[in-house]
C-alpha cells in the first residue's frame, strides 16, 4: 500500500468514526512510598518544642536557611551552623485561593502567605491569624509567630502569624 492510499484510507476511517479508541491514562500514586532523610531537621524540631526558632547557616555563603535545609544549592555543601532566629518577620508575598468547601459547597477564601523571618534568608509558607482580614494583607507587612499552647515538636507549633502593629514612631528621626 503506498503512502498516499494509506493516508486516504485513514481519512475514510476518520469520517466514519469520529472518536479514536483511547484508554484513560490515570496514574495512581498510592503504591509509591517516598523516602526522606530528616536527620538535619531533628534539632530544629526539638527547639520548636521549646518555643524557639532556629535556622541552619551555610559556612560557604552565609545563607541562613529556615526551615533548615539538607544542602545549600549555591555551594553544594551541607550547611552546619545553627543560628537563633527572632519570632518576627515580614510577609514576602501572598496569594488567596478560592476553594469550594466540600460540605457546604460555598466558595471559601483561603489566604496563604510566604513569611520571611528576620535573620533568615529564605521564606516559608504559612498562614495568618484567621482574625486578620486578609484584604488588609500587603507585601512587607510585619508579623510575629503565634505559638501553640502545647508545642509537640512539629511544624504546627507555630500555629499562625499574628499581625504586628506597624509602629511608625520607631522610624522617626529624633528631633534636634
Amino acid at each position, binding site marked *: 500500500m503506498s503512502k498516499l492510499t494509506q493516508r486516504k484510507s485513514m481519512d475514510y476511517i476518520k469520517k466514519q468514526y469520529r472518536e*479514536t479508541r483511547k484508554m484513560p491514562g490515570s*496514574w495512581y500514586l498510592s503504591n509509591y512510598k517516598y523516602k526522606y532523610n530528616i536527620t538535619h531537621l531533628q534539632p530544629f524540631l526539638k527547639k520548636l518544642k521549646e518555643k524557639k526558632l532556629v535556622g541552619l547557616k551555610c559556612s560557604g555563603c552565609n545563607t541562613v536557611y529556615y526551615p533548615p535545609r539538607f544542602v545549600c544549592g549555591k555551594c553544594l555543601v551541607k550547611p552546619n551552623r545553627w543560628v537563633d532566629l527572632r519570632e518576627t518577620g515580614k510577609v514576602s508575598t501572598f496569594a*488567596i485561593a*478560592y476553594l469550594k468547601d466540600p460540605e457546604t459547597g460555598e466558595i471559601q477564601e483561603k489566604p496563604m502567605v510566604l513569611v520571611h523571618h528576620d535573620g533568615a534568608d*529564605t521564606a516559608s509558607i504559612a498562614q495568618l491569624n484567621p482574625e486578620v482580614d486578609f484584604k488588609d494583607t500587603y507585601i512587607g507587612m510585619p508579623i510575629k509567630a503565634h505559638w501553640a499552647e502545647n508545642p509537640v515538636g512539629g511544624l504546627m507549633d507555630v500555629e499562625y502569624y499574628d499581625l504586628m502593629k506597624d509602629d511608625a514612631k520607631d522610624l522617626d528621626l529624633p528631633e534636634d
Partner: protein
Amino acid sequence: MGRQVAIVSAGFSEHASKRSDVNIAELVSEAVEDCLKKAPSVSFEDIDAFATGNMPGFEGSNLPELWMADWMGARNKPLMRVTTGGTTGGSVGIAGYYTVTAGLPGIDTVLAIAFEQQSQGDTSVGLANVAYGEVSLLNYLGLTYDQVGRLLSAGAAIGVAAYQATNYMHKTKIVEEDLARVVVQNRRNAAKTWWAHLKMPNLTIEQVLDTPYISFPLRYGMVCPASDGACAVLFTTEEKAKNMCDIPVYVNGVASVAHETAILGYSASGSAQIDPSEQLGAMKTSEICYQQAGISFPRKEIDYAEVYSPFPNQELMWVEKLGLFEETTAPEMYKNGVTALNGELPICCSGGVNSTNAIGASALERPAVAALQIMGKASNQVPKTVHTAIGHGWGGSLNLCTMMVMSDEPQRKWR
C-alpha cells in the same frame, strides 16, 4: 567546535481542549506532516535523528516515544527524549540544537517533536503529583490536612503564579486592568492563528474582569486553557539548510538555567526566592543567550519575542527580565501598543501560551512561531520584517527557564 544550526521548518497540530478524534500518536503525526509540508524537499529519509518530549504525568503514559516510534518516522533512527516539566518543549528544541551542533557522525538533520494530549489523563492529578512527595513529608512533620489542602491549591502552577503576580503588581503598582489588557491582546491574536485554542476576536477588558477569582489576583478569564496539541521543528546544518528552504533561521544562542525551587523547596524546606518575581535564572539565561548570539542591545536588536506566559502577569515580567524592556515599564508598553501586531516590538502574536497551552509542546511552539515569523510564514505574520527573534519557556516550580535566540543570519562564525 560546534556547527552552526538552522531551523528550516516548523509545524503544528490543531489545538483544542479535547482532540478525541485522534490519539497521541496521530496528534504527533499531524504536526510532523505539517512541518514536512513546509519544507517540500525534505522526506523522512533525510531526517537523521529525533529529539522528543512531553509531560508523561499528564497523559498516564510513560515514555510514549517507545510505542509511537513508527508514527514519528523514528524507526531505526537515533532518538533522545528530554522532559523538564513546563519547559519540556524548550528543552526538546535545545536538545535538537545540540544534536545537530555536536557533529556526531551521520547526524545532520534532526526533527524535534513535543506533544501533549492532556485530555487522555488527569491533569489535576498530574499537577498535584509535582509536590505530592514534599507535601506528604510536611504532613509527617505535623502539618494538618487542612493546611496541606491549602498548600496543594497554592502549590500548583496557578498558586505559584499567584504569589508571583502579587509581587509583580506590588513592584510595578499596576491594577488588574493591566493584566486583563495582556489577555485581550493575546486572545485576539489567537483568533488569527489557525492552530490556536482559545480564539476570542471580540474579547474586552470588562469581560475578563467579570470572571471570578481562581486565586487572587488571577481570574478564570486570565488563565491559560489546557489543550491537546503537538509541535515539530526541523533543525539542520547551515550547509543543508540553504537547499531546504528560502530563508533558513539560524539558531544563535540557547540556554536553560535553573534557579532554586520556589515556594515549597525540596524536602519542603521553604524558598530561597524571597521574591518569586525576581527570576535570577531567567536573567542569567537571557544573558548567556545574548552573549552567544553576540547581541549587546537586546532592546534594539530584537524584533519579535514569544514568551511563555500562561498567566498575564508573567508575560509582563518575562519581557522585562529577558531584557526587552526596562524594569517596571512593560505594562506601559502594552498600553501604548508597542507590543501589538503592528507595534515596534510585537510579542506573542500567535496568542501565546495564554491562549493555547499543550503543556509539553508549549515551550517548543514559542521558538517555532518566532522562527516562522522570521521566515515570513507565520499564520499571524507581523507586517514588519523580522530579523532577530527570541523564543522562551518556563517551568518547574518557577525555577526552570529555556530560551533560544534566532536570526536570519549566522552570527557564530567568528568564534
